[in-house]
């Protein structure tokens, strides 16, 4: 197996699916000739040409509207919204059109489409280019929500998202684009809705997403070494559908749950998981469920402040080592 970066895995998954299915087309700003501002789609324009890989104007509502229209009429489009913060300018198309089309029409509309977007902080881009908005998406019925934490998952989950008959919001954590891991060269598809458990443990369950997964794994190492606490790290990978079975089974075993969320605190996905686990495993919990999140503030730009507010390995270690 070759090592691929997170960004290379994006292009690999798209190429894999575009080769198999010529209904798959791709559009976005500067995605074609330039290969995307994060270079995550390099090579696609050369391989598939300008009718399947299309550069658009700065018109996010047109991009997503066109994506939906194409999906409704037999294609399987993939759109890129350059930064997930820009969902603000096309949120209507996502929440009111794409997410509700099938339900409102009593099952008539088909909207098999994927919207990829660079999400999250760590690049010192400031409050309008660093948000983690997977919880915004999770709050909207009718869309699936994917947020991979490594290149292997990127390839497998993006392929599955493209094949999925439902609209999928696919969040790529921009600080992870350079992260590498082993990724098979052949066809790889990972079903949506299955959590991964990259580390097993018996004392505390940590549920973490995207860039919070490697941080949690690092923290788990330290917690074992320095505090003798054995953490199980669960990566839901997809928020919708949510693999509550894996999460509940883990907490049933450990009796303790910590969520690690990059989003600002209020109404984060961790709150939802906390409310599910708190209700369904009330009698199994040995300690209060704790949420480690970015405080409820916009993200500052400068490195020293950004690093301070996004959950860090130290904060995870510190919080868990002090748990009841």
């Amino acid at each position, binding site marked *: 197996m070759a090592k691929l970066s997170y960004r290379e895995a994006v292009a690999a998954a798209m190429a894999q699916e575009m080769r198999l299915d010529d209904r798959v087309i791709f559009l976005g700003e500067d995605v074609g000739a330039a290969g995307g501002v994060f270079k995550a789609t390099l090579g696609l324009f050369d391989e598939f040409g300008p009718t399947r890989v299309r550069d658009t104007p700065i018109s996010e509502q047109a991009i997503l509207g066109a994506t939906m229209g194409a999906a409704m009429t037999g294609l399987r489009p993939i759109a890129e919204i350059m930064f997930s913060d820009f969902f603000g300018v096309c949120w209507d198309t996502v929440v009111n059109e794409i997410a509700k089309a099938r339900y409102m029409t009593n099952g008539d*509309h088909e909207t098999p489409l994927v919207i990829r977007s660079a999400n999250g902080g760590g690049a010192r881009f400031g409050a309008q280019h660093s948000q983690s908005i997977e919880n915004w998406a999770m709050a909207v019925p009718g869309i699936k929500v994917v947020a991979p934490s490594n290149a292997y998952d990127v390839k497998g989950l993006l392929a599955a998202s493209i094949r999925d008959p439902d609209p999928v919001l696919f969040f790529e954590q921009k600080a992870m684009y350079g992260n590498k891991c082993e990724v098979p060269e052949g066809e790889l598809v990972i079903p949506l809705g299955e959590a991964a458990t990259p580390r097993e443990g018996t004392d505390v369950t940590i549920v973490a997403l995207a860039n919070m997964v490697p941080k949690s794994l690092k923290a788990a190492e330290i917690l074992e070494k320095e505090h003798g606490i054995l953490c199980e790290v669960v990566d839901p990978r997809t928020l919708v559908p949510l693999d509550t079975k894996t999460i509940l089974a883990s907490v049933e075993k450990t009796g303790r749950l910590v969520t690690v969320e990059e989003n600002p605190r209020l109404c984060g996905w961790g709150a939802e998981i906390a409310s599910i686990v708190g209700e369904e495993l009330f009698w199994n919990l040995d300690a209060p469920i704790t949420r480690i999140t970015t405080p409820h503030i916009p993200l500052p730009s400068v490195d020293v402040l950004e690093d301070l507010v996004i959950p860090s390995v130290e904060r995870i270690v510190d919080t868990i080592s002090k748990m009841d």
Partner: protein
Amino acid sequence: MATAKAKSSSAGKIKIDKSQKLELYRIMSECRALQQRAYDLFMQNLVKGTTHLGQGQEAIAAAFGFAMREDDYTFNTYRGHNHNYVRGVSMTSILGELMGRDIGQLRGKGGSMHITDSSKGAMGSYAIIGAHMPIAAGAAWSAQYRGTEQVACCFFGDGTTNIGTFHEALNFAKIWELPVVYICENNQYMEYTPIGDVTAVEHPAADRASAYGLEPILVDGNDVEVMYETAMAALEKARKGGGPTLIEALTYRHHGHSRADPGKYRPDDEVKEWKENRDPLYGYRAKLLGEGIDEAELAKIDANTEKMIDEATEAAKNSPPPPAEIAYTDVFADGGAEWRN
């Protein structure tokens, strides 16, 4: 106010034969009856939620419905009953939906503002102003990519010309030369505000065509034959790869904006002028009589329309409300609503 001079449609006159004329009349008359019945049912408290009716605007829907190919796509707004009907969605389905019955086109799940039947090319009724304009571009893009020569027709109001999607969609359609026809039904008002009060140009669509490299087209939307010619020209152009067209059709809604709105914000003589002298249906009836068409032929159509609408009303009334379980279906493609395992 500086305005680009809008020109009338450059569509060449085409020959419309008698049977076609009768068809256009028939379609308009059925649309009128459908809308009028919806209004009556609303006043009888039999319509759930809201309605936005299109009495007075039938010529536009009828002409396009008649001109379009069976596999073309229609995108319309909440004021879309006529547009859906002309593509083949039945009166019963439409009235049933308004009344929240199981026989309704969407079994009550969507309501009056969302009637859709994509099997008939009726690609949906959209209730967020302007949202469907880029979606229509996407359907056209898909047709272009698949090489099917299908055309997407997208209907919207004058008020819609001031929202961002109008701008984004038209630019997008032009740069990719998409087979899409945008039809602005300028009925002079947004909800209660005259369009002129909130628009920087006189003709909200036609005066903006040049901003997208398009010809300005301003036509009498209440003259069904003019509309038919305009539609045919735009459809043919799109089908042949000539790209998008933007049409502004002048019209008027006879009723208020929605539900029981009496439309009192409009001057009496303006309403009177449009209802009495520019009614697309009655005007066309008079015209056809003037051209020598037998009154009996039109009366036969009228009578058939009456019968249809009464039957549809009965069928809708006799249908029960939808069963509870459908509330939880069709969120996702597997038919269900499950977000967890």
